[in-house]
């Protein structure tokens, strides 16, 4: 069973449907016991870092997320990747989960580059294939970075891997066949 953590940070329908398309059984849950009992854990997220961290605390999920990230196949997506890092610049600065050392920053304002970045961007380290991104903040490149993308003159972490902990800035659940292949690979890691 794959648990999809629901902490009121965005819509989970697409994530659920993508796993369903792969025939994987999922459970959308806010219950720390269900997360502890799951074989695999997906940590999605859309929105702002501060309210995401506040919601995690309010739901009593911080320890459950840290435990799952350290012990079982774990997949962070978008904001669910960013808050695995130490700190985000968003909302005047937010202390995050500190599971991956590093910081999250806002894209600089550069002529010709709209923020948020919306659309399909190629990822070095994943054969240059394009995945679907929607974000205004990015995680810096760290030793755990396995996929790098570039926008507004910045090279940023598109994907990190630390053992069976995978996390991506892009949305594999909305990245067509190529995204599904990545989810399938994670399901067998």
């Amino acid at each position, binding site marked *: 069973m794959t648990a999809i953590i629901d902490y009121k940070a*965005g*819509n989970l*329908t*697409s994530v659920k*449907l*993508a796993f*369903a*398309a792969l025939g994987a059984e999922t459970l959308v849950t806010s219950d720390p016991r269900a997360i502890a009992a799951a074989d695999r854990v997906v940590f999605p997220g*859309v*929105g702002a870092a501060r309210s995401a961290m506040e919601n995690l605390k309010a739901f009593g999920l911080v320890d459950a997320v840290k435990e799952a990230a350290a012990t079982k196949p774990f997949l962070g997506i978008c904001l669910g990747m960013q808050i695995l890092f130490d700190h985000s610049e968003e909302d005047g600065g937010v202390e995050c989960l500190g599971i991956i050392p590093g910081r999250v920053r806002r894209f600089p*304002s550069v002529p*010709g580059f*709209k*923020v*948020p*970045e*919306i*659309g*399909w*961007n*190629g990822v070095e380290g994943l054969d240059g*294939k*394009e995945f*679907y*991104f*929607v974000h205004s903040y990015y995680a810096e490149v760290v030793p755990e970075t396995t996929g790098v993308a*570039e*926008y507004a003159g910045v090279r940023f972490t598109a994907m990190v891997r630390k053992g069976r902990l995978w996390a991506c800035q892009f*949305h594999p*659940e*909305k*990245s*067509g*066949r*190529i*995204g*599904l292949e990545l989810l399938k690979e994670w399901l067998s890691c």
Partner: protein
Amino acid sequence: MLTKRVIPCLDVRNGLVTKGVKFKNNVDLGDPVEMAVRYSDGGADELVFYDITASAERRPIDIKMVEAVAKAIRIPFAVGGGISSVADMERVILAGAEKISVNSLAVRNPQIIAEGARAFGAQCIVLGMDPVKSGATASGYEITTRGFREHTGIDAVEWAKRAAGLGAGEIVVNSVDADGTREGFELEITRLIAEAVDVPVVASGGAGRPEHLVTVFEKAKADAAIVAGMIHFGDYTISDIKAAMHAAGVPTRMSW
């Protein structure tokens, strides 16, 4: 590199995709889910659905269709038509749409943009606008509503700025003058708005040949472009369009 998006637009009427010129002489083209799958498999970067009769018939958008599309494809899609409240937006998002497009509703009630952005994030709220060339406004373009029928006196560029300030995450500029002509996008209004706002701008109306997309990306600073008739009637495939973009040096997603 971030690629320029090609977005097929599917107008839906009575459960079928339809295509007309300036909302007239509609021809039914097929099942929305089947067409969504065909275009997604064919390389579309995103899709947009408009329930074109929902507002006129004063009924909510067809949620069953949204759910069926969400189940069938794995690329983002936006839905518009028949949205009249944040509760309607929520139903569409929970059904699996990535974005909601508001147009006439936002002109009547601009705060709906802010309310939607607060509830779901700016990335979910797309402002659709139908500008027409006009002597009545400073930019030379005026906003129309209700399927081009009503002129509002609102300046298109001012409206784009205001909507982006309220929280619209993306703006679709559908030129009334170019719509359905298949003679190319209206470059001037697209560029004026792309230069006026910090959010992505989607060019719409007038696509008839692959080079029209090349031109709107190169000359009008669009981030994405909508295509309809040129692919619906089989004149071109999305591959044809993307091959032309790629050959011209426009950043394009070429494998899917």
